[in-house]
């Protein structure tokens, strides 16, 4: 029961993340300016060198990450739970690094990046919780 609820919560968060990352990817490739009416730092953040990783836009990496987590959430069993947790924890760690760069180096905040960081944090919580709560199948007492 709890596994089903956690999995559902994870799927909802991953789908929201895919939405945010898709928007940022479209903005990046279409050369548009992201709607940025809260912090007004999106342009500055997206113009910085931290907007790309080895030539790949961070938005695209985010999209791939959320899609990977969604895929792992759909897979039953230990492998799926483990893969989802690894990807969500890695996404969480990298989001924290990018948030640090926004605050300490770029000196600007992009609201979409913050939203993505929140979603990734929640995904990390949900997937780790799932990993800890759901009993490994082969060890369940009969």
């Amino acid at each position: 029961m709890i596994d089903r609820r956690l999995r559902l919560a994870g799927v909802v968060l991953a789908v929201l993340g895919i939405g945010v990352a898709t928007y940022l990817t479209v903005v990046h490739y279409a050369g548009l300016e992201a709607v940025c009416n809260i912090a007004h730092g999106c342009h500055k953040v997206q113009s910085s060198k931290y907007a790309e990783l080895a030539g790949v836009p961070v938005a695209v990496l985010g999209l791939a990450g959320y899609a990977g987590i969604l895929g792992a959430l759909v897979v039953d069993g230990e492998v799926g739970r483990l893969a989802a947790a690894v990807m969500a924890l890695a996404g969480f760690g990298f989001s924290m690094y990018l948030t640090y760069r926004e605050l300490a180096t770029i000196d600007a905040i992009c609201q979409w990046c913050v939203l993505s960081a929140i979603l990734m944090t929640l995904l990390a919580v949900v997937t780790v919780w799932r990993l800890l709560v759901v009993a490994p199948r082969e060890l369940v007492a009969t």
Partner: protein
Amino acid sequence: MSQQTSSTKRERRDAARAERLERERAAVAAAQRKRRLTMLAGALAAAAVIVVVAVLVSSGGGGGKKTAAGGGAVVGAAATQQLLAGIPQQGLTLGNAGAPVTIVEFVDPQCPYCRDYSVNELPTVIQQQVRTGKAKLELRMLHFIGPDSTTAARALTAAGMQNKLFNAAEVLYHNQGEENSGYVTDAYLRRILGAVPGLDVNRAMQDASSTTVTEELGTAQTAQSRYGVGGTPTILVGPTGGTLKADGEQTPTAVGIAKLVDAAAAQKA
């Protein structure tokens, strides 16, 4: 008596069985706990490796060529000199003032994409469009990334007062440092400007804090708003004196700009 003995025996057997089941349950629970913690440790370790690699790549750790920003030698000065030799410069403009087409570039001295464009694409644009007299090039200096941008933009604009803006900007891009790391110091600027032949460095450093430079940067910002420039580098191309059109490419290329110049020239004709 015998019935009592038999009942006690059964009770003892049941108690032993319950105890054994309890022990088994505890053993399974302990194994599960251990397995879960092992999985969590594995997940954390794998994620940590991924994050460390990503952070190292993102912060450009290791290996690159040391430039003036990192305390190394000023690079790109000779190539810049060769690229711009013989092309007239007047303030913010490079090329023949009477060229039929105008290319306007909006850049920030700290923007890494501007650096990539300036080092990889601009030389071709200058050779094919400006040197041939097909177009003139105007540089509008923005400074939104941070204080280092402002300091650098002021110094570059001051170099423009000696008609050396493009030399100074190109050398600076070759020696660009880490964003907002405080690398744009007086000493750094003196080394960059000092690599531009014919530029009076002391005068440029003095002019950098002048009201003329402040007004010039203000004009660039006004033009930015007027043309709705949302990022850097942004390239606008149009017939001289006519309407400018934005280069729609994600990253400006010499090929894309050449197409716009041809279209603007045809419009002019």
